[in-house]
């Protein structure tokens, strides 16, 4: 059975739809990492020890926006809203609506703006695991 990919989602931050550079949206769900180590019990016998590592279990949403005149205002608002940004992206594919929700997000780093005719700014948010 053929399937369709999530390719042109609407990105919504704090209930407002944001226009982004097509194809620039990437995300991580914040999966708990599983470490696998080996232990040797002698005689060439090796076993594996598995452990769960939650230290990096945070979600990440990364995307680019065109450097329009209203961008700085938006960035300032998101930056002030520490741990309280909500990012949703959704796409209607056929009759189904694919939706991803990221709660308690903060804008990390100081975004670098590229002032040029096709200037963009890349924004990275991190927060709670994806719902």
């Amino acid at each position, binding site marked *: 059975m053929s399937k369709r990919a999530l390719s042109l989602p609407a990105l*919504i931050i704090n*209930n407002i739809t944001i226009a982004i550079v097509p194809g620039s949206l990437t995300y991580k769900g914040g999966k708990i990492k599983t470490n696998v180590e080996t232990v040797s019990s002698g005689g060439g016998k090796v076993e594996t020890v598995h452990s769960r590592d939650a230290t990096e279990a945070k979600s990440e949403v990364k995307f680019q926006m065109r450097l329009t005149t209203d961008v700085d205002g938006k960035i300032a608002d998101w930056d002030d809203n520490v741990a*309280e*940004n*909500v990012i949703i992206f959704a796409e209607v594919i056929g009759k189904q609506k694919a939706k991803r*929700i990221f*709660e*308690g997000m903060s804008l990390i780093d100081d975004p670098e703006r590229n002032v040029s005719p096709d200037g963009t700014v890349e924004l990275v948010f991190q927060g709670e695991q994806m*719902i």
Partner: protein
Amino acid sequence: MFFEVKKGGFKFELSEPIEVANKGAVEQATRLKLEEPVKDSEYDAIELAQFVTRAGLSVSKIFAGMNQQEEELKAEGEEIIPFHLQDVPDVEKLLKETTGLIKVLKAGDVDIKQFISTGKRLLTTRYSGSKRRICTIDDSEGSAFTPYLFDELSFQDKFCLVASYCVFFGISSIGEPKTISSKELV
């Protein structure tokens, strides 16, 4: 449909909840708070008034009945006070008039999609120079009701929301000179 009706505004109960971002979390919202139009929203309001008037004229029989009622009241010198200016708005009358308007719009020569789209603009725009929004989310401490959230509503809720707004705030009479009642003439 109408949750709380009082002078100056009303709360609209959605038939299906919507997901709203509020303070870092997603919440379910079922109630919207609506307030009267602001100065800069008049051009959008008059556009809605055109839809209502056009629909009414094309459904002449129904409209004639409504007009007659209005004329009778005027003849008696009784001024028609819009719902938002009444001290205790009559909810039953409001519901009846909203249902009537929905029927007139459906039967009339009006593009419902355009009517809803104009209503969306009126209810979701943050007009410059205005300190408040016309429509906010009542459940989540008055957070903004944005165009994205409007799109999330069911068709029924969109249609009823815009129609009830038109009726409550007397949108169809916007721009008309005020009637001088016979009492004032005496």
